[in-house]
């Protein structure tokens, strides 16, 4: 006779209280046909990687969640209180555009999650004629006010500012943060999620991932040791780093290179994680010329250190790792869906029927784009 023991009594995993290895957990998914998924499966997938975090930061971003306000910038703000900071933010927004609708983001108390801020959202239409010297005045208007508010308004932090998308994050375990915002109530065609194990700076709500500016959202496992150089570079182009951790700079680099300089996502990755010079030497002449130009032009954007990153924008996601692969990254495909994660098991948790699983080569981007 065979003895069967059911594991169902252990469905609620004990929270790890001693962790000796530092790491973060990331997972992202895109449905290329823009069919929308609710947040329940990515919550399960991220929670499977609880071990990769320390309960000090988790977050989610979803694209396509605000169809009723799809033409508005969804501005998510952490307020310390709804008095002075909110009055200041209201004033700035009313100066630079029109608030179509605003409300407190619905949240649900969780026993293990301490409410440090009040999450609020505005649906905002910027006045286009206020910005000059740009091809996308709306985006630059919003970028400018995000930088202004985050640097100058005490007690307010804009952590999400794109159209028809929203970041939901806090200090806590993946499942607690998901339940706090009830992310299963949102439906998106792109989702990114992150479980943080803070190493160089402390965990706080603003330091949880994803980091977002306009359409760009970033989740990151690792550390960017070139942060100082990268930060000086973006600050020279009108960005201000206010989140007290390195990943923020990646969102600004993508906005600068991808939106303002018009590089494709693949080219941005070549600039941030370029091939080694000896690899460039072996490329065909035309490609060599291009890669040399990228490396010379974007030297200060090159990122050093261990990292695995997934970046989303409204028409796709891109995943990549540092050039010598010091952090894990696997990809999975199932029909119209592309998954990118730290762990294969997380992908299989989201999609038990995933067809292929593969490990992208270091520094080479994995791209999933929506098909029109």
């Amino acid at each position, binding site marked *: 006779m065979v003895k069967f*023991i059911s594991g*169902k009594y252990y*469905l609620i995993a004990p929270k790890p209280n001693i962790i000796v290895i530092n790491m973060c957990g990331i997972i992202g998914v895109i449905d290329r046909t823009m069919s929308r998924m609710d947040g329940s499966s990515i919550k399960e997938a991220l929670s*499977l990687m609880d071990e990769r975090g320390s309960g000090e930061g988790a977050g989610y971003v979803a694209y396509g969640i605000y169809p009723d306000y799809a033409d508005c910038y969804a501005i998510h703000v952490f307020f310390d209180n709804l008095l002075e900071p909110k009055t200041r933010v209201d004033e700035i927004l009313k100066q630079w555009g029109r608030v179509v609708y605003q409300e407190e983001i619905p949240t649900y108390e969780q026993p293990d999650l301490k409410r440090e801020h009040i999450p609020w959202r505005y649906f905002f239409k910027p006045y286009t004629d206020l910005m000059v010297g740009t091809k996308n005045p709306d985006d630059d208007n919003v970028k400018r006010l995000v930088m202004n508010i985050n640097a100058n308004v005490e007690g307010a932090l804009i952590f999400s500012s794109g159209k028809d998308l929203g970041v939901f994050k806090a200090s806590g375990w993946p499942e607690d943060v998901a339940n706090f915002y009830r992310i299963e109530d949102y439906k998106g065609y792109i989702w990114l999620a992150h479980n943080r194990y803070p190493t160089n700076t402390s965990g706080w709500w603003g330091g949880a991932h994803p980091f977002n500016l306009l359409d760009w959202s970033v989740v990151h496992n690792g550390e960017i040791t070139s942060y100082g150089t990268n930060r000086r570079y973006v600050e020279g182009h009108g960005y201000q780093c206010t989140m007290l951790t390195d990943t923020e700079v990646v969102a600004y680099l993508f906005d600068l290179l991808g939106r303002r300089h018009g590089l494709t996502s693949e080219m941005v990755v070549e600039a941030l994680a370029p091939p080694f010079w000896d690899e460039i030497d072996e490329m065909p002449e035309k490609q060599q010329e291009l890669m040399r130009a990228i490396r010379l032009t974007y030297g200060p954007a090159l990122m050093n250190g261990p990292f695995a990153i997934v970046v989303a924008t409204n028409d796709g996601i891109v995943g990549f790792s540092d050039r010598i692969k010091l952090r894990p990254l696997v990809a999975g495909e199932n029909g119209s869906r592309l998954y990118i994660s730290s762990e294969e098991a997380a992908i299989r*948790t989201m999609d038990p029927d995933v067809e292929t699983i593969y490990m992208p080569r270091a520094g080479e981007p994995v791209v999933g784009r929506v098909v029109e």
Partner: protein
Amino acid sequence: MQVEPLVIDVKGMHYTPLNKQIRAAVASGVREIVLNNVLGQRFIANGLRGDVRITVNGVPGGDLGMFMSGPECEVFGDAEHAPGNTMDSGTLVIHGSAGDAVAHSMRGGSVFVKGNIGYRGGIHMKEYEDKRPILAIGGTSHAFLGEYMAGGLILVLGIGHDPAVRDRGIGSGIHGGEIVIRGDVSERLLGVGAMKVEFTEEDLERISPVIKEFCERFDLDPSKFLDTHYCRIVPSSSRPFAGKYTWE
């Protein structure tokens, strides 16, 4: 007395109660354990000692068989990072592919992977007297295979891959042991401190038991692999970084 095999449905289970159950079972004399619906559970069979066979159906989490001493663990699925981490003795058989740092710091026993492995396979494997760990891979490996390797054997058959390995940094910082790769390996893929030498008939004689066991495990025909069409990579010195960190 014949002890019945133990079958556990692992779905949704955390690794701590799972490993406690496995250890209790082994202590009570169970010789065969089957784990079903495994998905992401880390540290399975960690530090486990004894004569037991564990079948893992699914995708186990990282560090499968870490510090394990003696058991045999067969995975019908892929494995995540570092299966065989600091393993002391015993066998891991993985019927899929595996993640980064496979056989990390392994001290003895064998790890067989039918598919591919990620980056830094066999990093810091070591050997001592009769303890000589083996990492054998059917497919290909990503970069930095055998990084800082101090002992043991890494074998890459490259089935379905030509060349068998195309990523850089093979044997980066190697100062003991050997890496044997099917076919030729481009000189530019060798890491600092690694050197290519001829694979001789004597080498084949020494390594053929490993090739045969690998093929037997995965039901492959060994005859096509029993020739000298391999490349052998060994340390160029026992202290590749002597001049980098110290002055004599």
